[in-house]
């Protein structure tokens, strides 16, 4: 290995011959700060932790975009996607906070400050440059966020619309880390101050969150406020003060930076004025984001949850009706395709039944609600959620099949008997890989033994014997099963029929295990 250990030096063109001293090199002081910011940004990029976290951020985002999650990302809800871009940059922000803090303290640590203090650029301008060195990383984050969101928005199944304010939070958290790193370095000029500071901030945040029981205005003082529940809401029910939050973050970043500059000797009238302005902007942002959910918003959420028909648009496909919140009306054709596929396998009156597929959310507990959707009581009504794609499709098919067999969703919750066999066959019989779908739709991700098959509301339970019959049926060509189903529809959908009888009617081996010969009830 060469004795010369070289660093990557990005130089302008190589010298040619003897050069005279540079002349007139001081045209603009701001340009000098920007030049130093560029230099420091390059130094940051050469720090291994920064590089590693940068790559991790890109890899994590790329993995989220390209792994597909078995189709669940094919129907992104854009006003949730924008919010989901905010968390990943936080790790990058943390490492930048530490690295910028160390960079600010470099001169002190290595003893060059006495020398540098007699150079033209004042220490407070150097602090400004350190804070600005985070800008390229913020721009990079903005590009990643923009790409991530655009990628989702360009998918044919995308619904809703994103918010620019939500998309800005990730890049702003990077700038916040830069300003905070400089302020901490100028306030406590020791590198060992950083770990206790980070731990202290974490403990403080946790204590505040615990003591206030999620008080809205305190919660929104954090740079990133992710609120995610089980089901995406229509955008008009979100009620997130994203624009105010961006205003708050901008004010906070500038305020922290100005405080660092003031501490560092930059007590110019301009900086003092900007400090006051930043304080006002931050206060305005806090005031704007503080009030929480308005009465009108709560009422709108209740209305959309309890009486969705009042806010939905309904369209007819074939004999059924499909009612969706305005942003999801484009998905009704996909729902109709599933309904028609399931219904084509059914017999008796179910094959011609007019269903109403209604999209529902439960927004009454706010954005972080994880409550399951209540089954619809009305006959012939099938619930569909606000997520679509991947497992949500066979789950919806299970819901449709349940209503076709039992008449309504409430009754389908009481299916503990052999009707689960016909429900599962109706739901999955027309799939190209029905056993794979069976595994996906079951809660335990298996195709043996007893288990629960998920649906938008009530799950369908099956015992081991029923699972065996379902598997046998799903492995047979559906055209060989369809005539038998249609011919024996009444017996197959009767709660009094045993699993063994179902197997005999449909021509598959009769199971011998427990539960095969008796009529099981849910009370058993």
């Amino acid at each position, binding site marked *: 290995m060469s004795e*010369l*250990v*070289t*660093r990557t*030096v990005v*130089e*302008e*063109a190589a*010298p040619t011959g003897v*050069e005279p*001293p*540079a002349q007139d*090199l*001081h*045209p*603009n*002081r701001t*340009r*000098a700060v*920007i*030049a*130093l910011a560029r*230099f420091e940004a390059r130094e940051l990029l050469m720090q291994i932790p920064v590089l590693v976290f940068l790559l991790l951020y890109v890899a994590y985002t790329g993995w989220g975009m390209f792994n597909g999650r078995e189709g669940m990302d094919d129907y992104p809800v854009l006003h949730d996607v924008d919010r989901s871009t905010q968390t990943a940059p936080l790790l990058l922000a943390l490492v930048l906070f530490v690295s910028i803090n160390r960079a600010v303290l*470099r001169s002190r640590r*290595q*003893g*060059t400050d*006495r*020398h*540098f*203090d*007699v*150079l*033209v*650029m004042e220490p407070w301008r*150097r602090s400004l440059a350190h804070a600005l060195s985070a800008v390229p990383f913020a721009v990079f984050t903005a590009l990643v966020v923009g790409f991530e969101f655009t990628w989702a928005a360009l998918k044919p199944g995308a619904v809703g619309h994103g918010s620019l304010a939500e998309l800005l939070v990730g890049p702003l958290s990077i700038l916040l880390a830069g300003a905070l790193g400089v302020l901490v370095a100028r306030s406590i000029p020791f590198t060992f101050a950083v770990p206790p500071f980070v731990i202290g901030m974490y403990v403080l945040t946790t204590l505040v969150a615990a003591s206030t029981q999620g008080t809205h205005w305190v919660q929104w003082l954090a740079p990133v406020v992710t609120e995610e529940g089980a089901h995406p809401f229509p955008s008009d029910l979100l009620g997130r003060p994203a624009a105010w939050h961006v205003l708050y973050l901008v004010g906070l970043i500038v305020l922290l930076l100005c405080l660092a500059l003031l501490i560092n000797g930059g007590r110019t009238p301009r900086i003092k004025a900007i400090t006051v302005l930043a304080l006002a902007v931050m206060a305005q942002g806090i005031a704007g984001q503080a009030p929480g959910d308005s009465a009108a918003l709560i009422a709108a959420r209740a209305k959309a949850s309890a009486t969705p028909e009042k806010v939905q648009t309904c369209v007819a496909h074939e004999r059924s009706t499909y009612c969706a919140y305005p942003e999801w009306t484009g998905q009704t054709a996909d729902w109709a395709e599933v309904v028609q596929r399931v219904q084509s396998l059914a017999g008796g009156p179910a094959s011609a039944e007019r269903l109403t597929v209604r999209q529902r959310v439960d927004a009454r507990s706010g954005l972080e609600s994880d409550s399951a959707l209540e089954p619809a009581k009305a006959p012939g009504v099938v619930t569909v959620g606000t997520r679509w794609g991947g497992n949500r499709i066979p789950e919806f098919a299970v819901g449709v099949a349940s209503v076709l067999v039992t008449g309504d969703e409430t009754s389908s919750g009481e299916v503990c008997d052999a009707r689960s066999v016909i429900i599962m066959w109706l739901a999955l019989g027309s799939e190209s890989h029905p056993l794979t779908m069976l595994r996906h739709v079951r809660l335990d991700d298996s195709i043996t033994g007893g288990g629960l098959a998920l649906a938008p509301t009530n799950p369908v339970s099956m015992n081991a014997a029923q699972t065996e019959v379902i598997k046998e049926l799903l492995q047979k060509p559906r055209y060989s099963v369809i005539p038998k189903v249609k011919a024996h529809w009444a017996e197959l959908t009767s709660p009094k029929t045993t699993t063994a009888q179902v197997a005999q009617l449909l021509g598959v081996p009769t199971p011998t295990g427990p539960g095969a010969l008796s009529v099981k009830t849910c009370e058993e």
Partner: protein
Amino acid sequence: MTPTVSASGLTLRYGGTVALDDVSLRLSEGVTGLLGPNGAGKTTLLRVLATAVPADRGAFTVLGHDPGTTSGRLDVRRALGYLPQTPAFHPDFSAFEFVDYVAILKELTDRSARHREVRRVLEAVDLSDVRGKRIKRLSGGMRQRVGLAAALVGDPGFLVLDEPTVGLDPEQRMRFRELIAESGVGRTVLLSTHQTEDVAMLCHRVIVMVRGSIRFEGTPAELTARAAGRVWSSTARDPGARAGWRTGTGSFRNVGDPPKGADLLEPTLEDGYLLTLDGEPAEVAA
């Protein structure tokens, strides 16, 4: 000749200690040596002139700029190259990066012009070949040259060098003297040193400081001339001499007022310097 630096009445106290006591001086183009024992106030004077610390009293200008005002101080700093007594570096920076960093702090903003300038000064101190090498891997002499390059970048009109040859081996010291001599062409250099040899070889003028005051200001020849007829040889240390020391031949070299019939010797700059100290403990390394 118009002086580059003009100071009058500079006074600075640290608690009860007078670091500078009514110092007035005028520096013009060329290398001026600043000699004095430890604690004489040399480094304090350099730091005041480099605008690192303000004087309690007195005033000075550098190339006509008054550092007493904000804009004047910036103008002084723009005209200044400063190599501190024990220069520190960012060890993970390459030589190029460090000098480039200093150039940015001197607000040389145009990137291509700045890089040309950095290459120029690195070439001037003979470090072109190792400019990509991390500073922590450079020898002490090379680091000192990086410090000089950092001082020279931006072509300052006033160069302040605080004991730049301390710790260098003889070969490095000679090379450094050459660089300083080259640096003195077309600009004013104030060189603080313990080495009278440095002054003899480099300086067109010399200032001797003792206890915060200027004891002598003139040419090296004038300082040497102060010892004319006041240096003699003896077989034993002469108790009447102000200073005396055994030489390599076994005889003693004395400075002071020689006795009648003494074996007078040709004076050197060091003899003149010792006589100027007038009893102050001197730290001289020839």
